[in-house]
């Protein structure tokens, strides 16, 4: 049974590998049928064509940016880009320092300006509010009934801000389908017509807002928490707290004094004067417009009403971000034509194919039939890598870049490396006079450690490159790491079991000259008696002794191949008999 043991294990492992491949294929096929995945890997912009910008955030005042602020910045850029109607834009942070914006095609000058602009948050009083939909053309206010300013506006809440033009704009605005003409930043000293986009359970609202009264930079902090009731007990209502700095506190006090008057006049909770509302405006879009229910003198207003934990957190984050204006400096801006990318990919693949072919030819030349095992292993590794990239493309939106392709091509060599380490070990074992079956087992035991240690170095490099690298390096590091893992899987689950099985075939087991494992050409000491028959521990010393007498030429070499116990025994015998090696010539 000892000899069928490894064979059964080998078969089992191969079946498992088949299962892994089948499951990956099935997952991908499932995704394909659901219309979400595709059989071809997703391509990065440098291959597909498009624009990639790497932006470095700059905080006003030159302080360092935290990861949280960076994530906020990404969220805001995403909002802007999505809002400008660019489909399939990808915005991500890189190394916790930069923001990478990838857009298909060539973005307009306006979109570029928008992406770079710093977030602009401020507070404006509400003059008028209404449902988000555009007023139908036939029911719009006739020209002669449009509100007309009668005097210069006295304060931010003065309806004299509303001009006929402004009102017409207000009525025409459709918040469910907002026009994309807000690329120019609004004038803080002028009124603004804008939307609060629809959110969960609440339709869009449009507003006419007064001029900016408190700037976002006057916020010193923001938190969110569960609200406390009158008795101090925690209720189920979420609340967002804002903290203003001194300047903001003073300004906010003046504003709330005015706004609270509208609130009180309209009858408090039941009233509905929009002028009691104070809009929080981010990038000219209202994110919240709470009513002023009290005069805030300490600069610590609390916003309540219908928040969930998530929406409270979101608003609090936005407020904090607004408190810290971040602008972006373009570090690198690449516009790649699809033609060039396609060409590069084609040449890259051609190069890869030629490289693969050369490796195959070299392996066959060096290892004969054993080289075919290399080829088969490379095919399995390729299939694993391909499936993994496809699945990651589907689930993680991983995109293959040119550097990634380079990583895969470089990996061909590194993958074939582990086979060479293994094959050389088997050859070493054969040279020591073992039969192929035990040479495979022993060679594997030794090669396994080496392969694991060296792959660990490769993986380490890939991981370090991935996490600290800038620019395109990530794609390269990613595929390098991925292929290192695929390689490990293949060596353990394909190459070794396959060799275990092949070692039991006549062609390899008997060491056919073309098998690449011919003991004769490897200069093995002939302790080997043909397929299926191997030395037993009992006849080793006897054989060694016999050989020494018969074949002094091979003796020194045989001795070196002995186990420690054998070597000690031999050394003892040597001391007794005197050395016969002194005149020997090695080799045969």
């Amino acid at each position, binding site marked *: 049974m000892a000899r069928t043991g490894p064979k059964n294990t080998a078969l089992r492992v191969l079946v498992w590998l088949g299962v892994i491949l089948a499951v990956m294929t099935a997952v991908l096929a499932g995704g394909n049928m659901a219309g979400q995945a595709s059989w071809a890997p997703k391509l990065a912009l440098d291959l597909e064509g498009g624009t990639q910008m*790497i932006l*470095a955030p700059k905080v006003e005042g030159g302080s360092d940016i935290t990861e949280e602020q960076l994530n906020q910045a990404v969220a805001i850029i995403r909002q802007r880009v999505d809002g400008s109607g660019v489909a399939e834009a990808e915005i991500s942070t890189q190394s916790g320092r*930069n923001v990478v914006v990838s857009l298909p095609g060539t973005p307009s*000058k306006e979109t*570029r300006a928008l992406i770079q602009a710093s977030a602009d948050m401020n507070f404006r009083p509400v003059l008028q509010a209404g449902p988000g939909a555009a007023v139908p053309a036939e029911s719009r206010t006739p020209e002669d009934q449009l509100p007309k300013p009668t005097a210069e506006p006295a304060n931010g809440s003065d309806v004299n801000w509303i001009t006929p033009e402004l009102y017409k704009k207000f009525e025409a605005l459709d918040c469910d389908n907002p026009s994309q003409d807000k690329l120019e930043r609004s004038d803080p000293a002028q009124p603004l017509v804008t939307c609060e986009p629809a959110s969960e359970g609440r339709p869009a609202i449009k507003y006419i807002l007064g001029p900016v009264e408190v700037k976002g930079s006057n916020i010193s902090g923001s938190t969110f928490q569960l609200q406390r009731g009158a008795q101090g007990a925690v209720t189920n209502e979420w609340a967002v707290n804002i903290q203003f700095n001194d300047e903001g506190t003073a300004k906010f006090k003046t504003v709330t004094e005015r706004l609270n008057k509208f609130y009180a006049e309209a009858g408090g909770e039941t009233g509905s004067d929009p002028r009691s509302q104070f809009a929080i405006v981010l990038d000219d879009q209202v994110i919240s417009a709470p009513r002023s229910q009290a005069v805030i003198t300490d600069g610590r207003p609390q916003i309540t009403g219908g928040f969930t934990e998530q929406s409270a957190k979101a608003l609090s984050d936005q407020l904090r971000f607004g408190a810290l204006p971040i602008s972006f*400096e*373009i*570090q*690198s*801006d*690449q*516009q790649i*034509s*699809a*033609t*060039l990318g396609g060409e*590069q990919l084609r*040449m890259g693949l051609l*190069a*890869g194919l*030629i*490289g*693969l072919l*050369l*490796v195959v030819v*070299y392996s066959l030349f060096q290892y004969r039939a054993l080289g075919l095992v290399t080829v088969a292993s490379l095919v399995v590794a390729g299939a694993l890598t391909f499936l993994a990239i496809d699945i990651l493309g589907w689930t993680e939106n991983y995109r293959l870049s040119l*550097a990634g392709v*380079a990583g895969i*091509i*470089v990996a061909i*060599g*590194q993958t074939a*490396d582990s086979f*060479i380490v293994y094959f050389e070990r088997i*050859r*070493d074992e054969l*040279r020591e006079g073992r039969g192929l079956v035990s040479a495979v087992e022993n060679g594997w035991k030794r090669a396994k450690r*080496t392969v694991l240690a*060296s792959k*660990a170095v490769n993986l380490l*490099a890939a991981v*370090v*490159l991935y996490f*600290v*690298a*800038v*620019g*395109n*390096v990530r794609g*390269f590091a990613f595929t*390098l790491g991925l292929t290192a893992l695929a390689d490990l899987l293949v060596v353990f689950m394909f190459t070794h079991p396959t060799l275990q099985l092949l070692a039991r075939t006549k062609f390899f087991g008997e060491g056919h000259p073309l098998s690449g494992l011919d003991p004769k050409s*490897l*200069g093995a000491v002939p302790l080997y008696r043909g397929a299926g028959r191997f030395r037993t521990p009992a006849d080793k010393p006897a054989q060694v002794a016999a050989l020494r007498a018969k074949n002094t030429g091979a003796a*020194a070499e045989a001795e070196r191949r002995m186990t420690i116990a054998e*070597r000690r025994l031999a*050394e003892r015998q040597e001391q007794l008999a005197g*050395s016969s090696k*002194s005149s020997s010539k*090695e*080799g045969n």
Partner: protein
Amino acid sequence: MATSFANFGNELYTGKRSYDFVGSKKIWFLIAAVLVALSILLPVVKGGFNLGIEFRGGSEFTVSNVKTTDASIGEKAVEDVVAGSVPRVANVAGNTMRIQTDKLTEDETLQIKAGLTDAYGVTDNEVTSTFIGPTWGADVTKQALLGLAIFVGLAAVLMALYFRTWKMSLSAIVGMLVTMFITAGVYALSDFEVTPSAIIGFLTVLSYSLYDTVVVFDKIRENTADLQASTRRTFAEEVNLAVNQTLVRSINTMMVAILPVGAILFIGAGLLGAGTLRDLSLALFVGILIGTAATIFIAAPLYAWLRQGEPELVKQAERVAHRRAQAAAKADSPAEPAKA
């Protein structure tokens, strides 16, 4: 031929054929020291590396499928927009033109892009433009150095843990650093353009160099595992035998690593001109060659040298010498075919 290569392997394995890598270590160390010193001095004397646009900052346009490779057309297209600028126009490969300029504004970039499209008679999506801010290169360099430091640190720890001796770890790292300096030296000497892609390749070379060293050191460790019980060879001789025994593997590994890289390099350079693939593969090509050599000529001999003074090994070496003397006296002929 394969048989003869296998035979070469056999002879190396048994020690019949042996190259004295460890014994001649002084020569290798001297050569390495000279090369490293040159690699450091050369960029200083030459005034630095040939830095790519990513490090200088500026704008670059690539026009593919051009009908004519006349550089003056491109120069004119740029000068029409920015008077007095001195663009660098080059035919990089086949029918692809590369135009590099100083930093341009967005308007200028778009205008030049349009101008080049007309001038070379290509379609709009055959022109690629790249703008690199002046601080980008510094950023890339900083990150690369950080990555290098982290990698070297972690690799040193990993190897010290795996081999359980800091001397092996140190030797491997020194071998890697030698690879790094000489590869950089080759770049300085040959004026290859240093781009971020070249730097990635450079960092990958370090991983390759260490990988190669790990495999050889594994064999050394195996050969020297029960050295104390043996009087056949001294420590240095065992190390040398291990290097010889893994020589065929080293050559084969290097070959399969360099074949795909060479394919990218020559196809990349021949058909595509400058770009990610070429820059990456060039650094790898140079580095893999040097990395393999550094393991054999520097890392392994250095390890033998670092340990040769250890009292136990000195004693063992004495025992070997003693046994050899005895054997020689008895047989009245030279001891041991293996070289001392």
